[in-house]
């Protein structure tokens, strides 16, 4: 037999229909002989009625709502500086100095082999950009191909760790670098070295795809990106093989006869996506 105290405790879930059938039967049995619980149940039901009859909002338009909201949305990563010229200059100088100090400090600790899930990874990218900017034009292709290879190493590592979004992001970054390198490929300083580097990239792409395919839940996005990258590599190698003989006769060679490759859309890098995934991981 259900005690009066227990029955009272169960009245609210009973009124909300949250009790199992046998519990309901026990409450029903108690209610048959307990006027106090019967009265309390009626109060509970009246309260429920008040709660569920709170009306929904009348129809409203989302467009003006959005315009008002948009006006107050903060700009991500915007540098907020007081709107006075003096403050602005001082603030900008301070911000730049802070960035320089932080970048220098972080660079000192950043491992060149940092992977995309490492908090120091952005520093590594900055280092690479600086390195590329300081590289003489003749050596730029070599650096670009090294960086492309590094992106593929990262993609492979992320695919192995089952971090597909980071792997995809590295593959997209690889594509960007290779696209940029395509311009340099028209005049490789060392055609054989370049050819070897492209072969090495192909091998790394194969490794990424193998890692992805070996997973039971292989990621379609990685597969597509690798396939697109291999196509791009094919195109580059054809371009390189056509261009290379002309370059062997020196700078006086005839203008580049290589037909311009048809540009194709390339996924843009998602730096912010990287950052968020790093935060999640």
């Amino acid at each position, binding site marked *: 037999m259900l005690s009066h105290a227990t029955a009272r405790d169960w009245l609210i879930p009973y009124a909300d229909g949250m009790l199992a059938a046998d519990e309901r039967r026990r409450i029903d049995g108690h209610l048959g002989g307990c006027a106090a619980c019967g009265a309390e149940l009626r109060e509970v039901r009246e309260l429920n009625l*008040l709660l569920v009859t709170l009306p929904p909002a009348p129809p409203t338009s989302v467009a003006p709502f959005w315009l008002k909201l948009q006006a107050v949305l903060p700009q991500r990563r915007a540098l907020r500086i007081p709107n006075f010229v003096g403050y602005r200059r001082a603030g900008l100088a301070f911000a730049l100095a802070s960035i320089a100090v932080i970048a220098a400090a972080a660079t000192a600790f950043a491992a060149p082999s940092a992977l995309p899930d490492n908090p120091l990874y952005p520093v590594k990218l900055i280092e690479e950009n600086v390195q590329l900017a300081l590289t003489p034009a003749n050596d730029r292709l070599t650096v670009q191909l090294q960086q492309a290879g590094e992106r593929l190493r990262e993609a492979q590592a992320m695919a192995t760790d089952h971090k597909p979004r980071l792997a995809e992001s590295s593959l997209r970054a690889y594509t960007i670098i290779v696209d940029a390198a395509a311009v340099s490929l028209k005049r490789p300083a060392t055609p054989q070295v370049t050819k070897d580097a492209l072969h090495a990239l192909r091998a790394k792409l194969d490794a990424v795809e193998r890692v992805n395919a070996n997973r039971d839940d292989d990621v379609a996005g990685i597969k597509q990106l690798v396939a697109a990258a291999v196509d791009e590599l094919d195109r580059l190698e054809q371009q390189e093989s056509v261009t290379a003989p002309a370059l062997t006769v020196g700078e006086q060679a005839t203008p580049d006869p290589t037909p311009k490759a048809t540009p194709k859309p390339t996924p843009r890098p998602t730096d912010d996506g990287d950052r*968020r995934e790093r935060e999640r991981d």
Partner: protein
Amino acid sequence: MARAQDAPSIEGDAEERRLIDRSAAGDQEAFRQLVIRHHRLVINVAFRALGELSLAEDVAQEVFLKVYKALPGYRHEKPFTHWLHRVAANAVTDALRRRRPIVSLDGMEQPPASRESDPLDVATRHDLQKAVRQAIASLPSHYRDTIALQAFGELSYEEIAKTLDIPLGTVMSRLSGAKRLLRERLGDLVHGEEANTA
């Protein structure tokens, strides 16, 4: 009780995830799409809690602004709508507490004269709803947050448990405690004479 939303499709999940990620990265167009998707849900929660459209829209603005700022830290471990409900419930209960002095429950302890003669009377119903809102606002926070999700968000026990990340049994005990206090505080407004069926 009506459900707040049906389970989204896998495609809908993927699209929403994409919109969330892009919004977190600062893509305001993606965030606009998210707002369009969930504007009605948030406005309804706020309106049920506050009873005035202009106030509800202000609170909904506040909710979406908080969401936008917090999105970079959002993890996809729980459904976005659960998180949104939680942010909305917090915002509306805060707004209710800010407005508490405006409406006193003292005057509501006796049912208005027209209540029994015409239970559908709009003014009476409006006053009753105000009293319920203010009584909810006066609850201890753990009761208030839980009952707000049921009364304003129209969530089930299971949905409340997922939204607050607490066991189902805790939801039951909190709702029971909240409703006991509400009955005490609403006094004669909940007299049990009319609702004898469920």
